[in-house]
């Protein structure tokens, strides 16, 4: 048995799986990874059950240290990594597994185009609370003591047998298009001109963006009349876009309330929810409406491409050294890393 020490949780890190189902009726949200696709890719890279609990990381800054033996990690998400060994440090691109020897460190330096990365840990197991290991801090459920990870936390894991590292050959490419929504359930609470504005005007991601939801800034939306600013509370689901009296939308995410009294103008479709959760404060987004049937088709298409990605996970060539192919591929995609820059630091 070895252990993973959290030297730094960075901006925010918590243990998540795909979340708990069946308890919204008593007010318990699903919680779970904001990007379940990344969770499934990371677990597959690490050699875990695809739905095992893993560590969801916001915005980078996380540092993980292997203790009492080797620890195998895998990172999914557009992130820059550093592997610190006794001999120095080397830069790595994500979408791969990496086995840390006792005492070695993995740093998630920063995330790239999106805010989220998922770090899977081989053999990480956590007790299920109401059917899930997902952290829901507000009610102290799941994860480690029901809270986000802190510096000094240790997670017991299984020491991996020697095996080739795995990588995803063709990481998913970000989609810059508008966020697709299905209008309703309370679109009729808004003035028709405001409904048009919702589907044409840009909105900005504010700093108030976390696992509960994302507050947007922009031209305030206008309710049909004063009475339309509130509803008799009804259920809310992840993706629901509620609009309180000030007219500024809030998109609910995995930890969002299960019920609320603000009208909901639209719901972000399943396939695009992660695209919204990934956006950084200051970025602009637009919404476009699709039908329920179109959104269901898009959910199925997204699952199909995820399955293709999972099938594209293969042993990493030149195991243990920088994979130049992967590095240059990432370079072309994100334009962030100069592959030669880190040669001096490479062990």
């Amino acid at each position, binding site marked *: 048995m070895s252990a993973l020490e959290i030297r730094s949780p960075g901006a925010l890190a918590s243990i998540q799986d795909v979340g708990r189902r069946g308890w919204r*009726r008593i*007010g318990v949200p699903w919680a779970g990874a904001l990007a379940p696709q990344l969770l499934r890719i990371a677990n597959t890279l690490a050699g875990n059950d695809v739905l095992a609990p893993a560590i969801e990381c916001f915005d980078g800054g996380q540092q993980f240290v292997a203790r009492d033996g080797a620890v195998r990690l895998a990172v999914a998400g557009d992130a820059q990594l550093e592997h610190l060994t006794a001999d120095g440090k080397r830069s790595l691109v994500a979408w791969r597994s990496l086995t840390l020897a006792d005492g070695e460190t993995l740093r998630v330096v920063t995330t790239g185009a999106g805010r989220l990365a998922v770090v899977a840990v081989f053999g990480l197991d956590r007790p299920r609370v109401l059917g899930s290991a997902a952290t829901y801090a507000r009610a102290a459920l799941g994860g480690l003591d029901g809270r986000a990870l802190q510096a000094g936390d240790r997670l017991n894991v299984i020491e991996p047998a020697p095996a080739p590292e795995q990588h995803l050959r063709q990481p998913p490419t970000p989609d810059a298009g508008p966020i697709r929504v299905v209008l309703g359930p*309370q679109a009729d609470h808004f003035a028709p001109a405001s409904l048009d504005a919702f589907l044409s005007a840009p909105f900005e991601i504010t700093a108030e963006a976390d696992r509960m939801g994302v507050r947007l800034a922009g031209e305030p939306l206008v309710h049909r009349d004063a009475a339309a600013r509130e509803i008799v509370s*009804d259920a809310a689901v992840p993706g*629901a876009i509620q609009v309180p009296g000030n007219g500024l939308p809030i998109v609910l995410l995995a930890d969002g*309330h*299960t019920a609320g009294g603000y009208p909901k103008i639209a719901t972000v479709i399943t*396939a695009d929810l992660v695209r919204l959760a990934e956006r950084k404060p200051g970025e602009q987004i637009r919404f476009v409406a699709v039908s329920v049937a179109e*959104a269901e088709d898009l*959910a199925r298409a997204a699952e199909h491409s995820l399955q293709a990605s999972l099938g594209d996970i293969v042993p990493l060539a030149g195991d243990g050294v920088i994979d130049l192919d992967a590095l240059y591929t990432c370079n072309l995609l994100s334009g962030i890393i100069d592959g030669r820059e880190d040669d001096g630091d490479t062990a």
Partner: protein
Amino acid sequence: MRILDMGDAAFSVEFGDAIDPALQARVNALDVAIEHARSAGQLDGVIETVPTFRSLTVIYDPLQTRRASLEAALRDLIAAADHAPASDGRHWRLPACYGDAFGPDLADVAAATDLTPEAVINAHSTTEYVVYMLGFLPGFPFMGDVPAALQLPRRREPRLRVPPGSIAIATGLTAIYPWESPGGWHLLGRCPVPLFDATREAPALLAAGDRVRFTPVSADEFDRLDAELKAGQLDPQQWCTPVGALA
């Protein structure tokens, strides 16, 4: 009745837009009917249902089923729910310590309603409330109806931290906060009985359809109950009266 869109993984069957026990009875009837159908192996792809004051939300997996086929499969169940009688819930008498540090808004509520604090406590604690729904936070019960004399809008400035156990009112509703949370309701007192415990088979103490009354207790009695509950020496079920056992 109308069916409202909630994206590609949920829809809402809305029976009305008021707080009304008759609407709640229809919501619960459809909820029970869907549960029976699912136990019988029907309605594949339904993940869970969420009953509220006036609507039942059906959450489904768009990879397993589609809205159109679920709606067709539910048509008869929805029609049958339109004629549902109110169901009998359990009856609870929960201890409540009103005022002072536990009820920091009691004096303001008394002033705003032109009542004495004692009259506010009396009005709140002699009314039997229906649990309309759970939500907002795990185990949070939306209960009503608060007597007309006590009905006030929410506070203009919501509190950032409402202590767990706080008994609060706003509009026609009363609630107990199971968790520390921000909140805009008026705090009248505190209940020592934990409303949510993930280790219980039914984690939420209360369920939609239950009836609740509050019994005023002193601060000393509150402290004793609180300590004994935390030590596991008291079972919260002791405040529950089985249906039919009422005098």
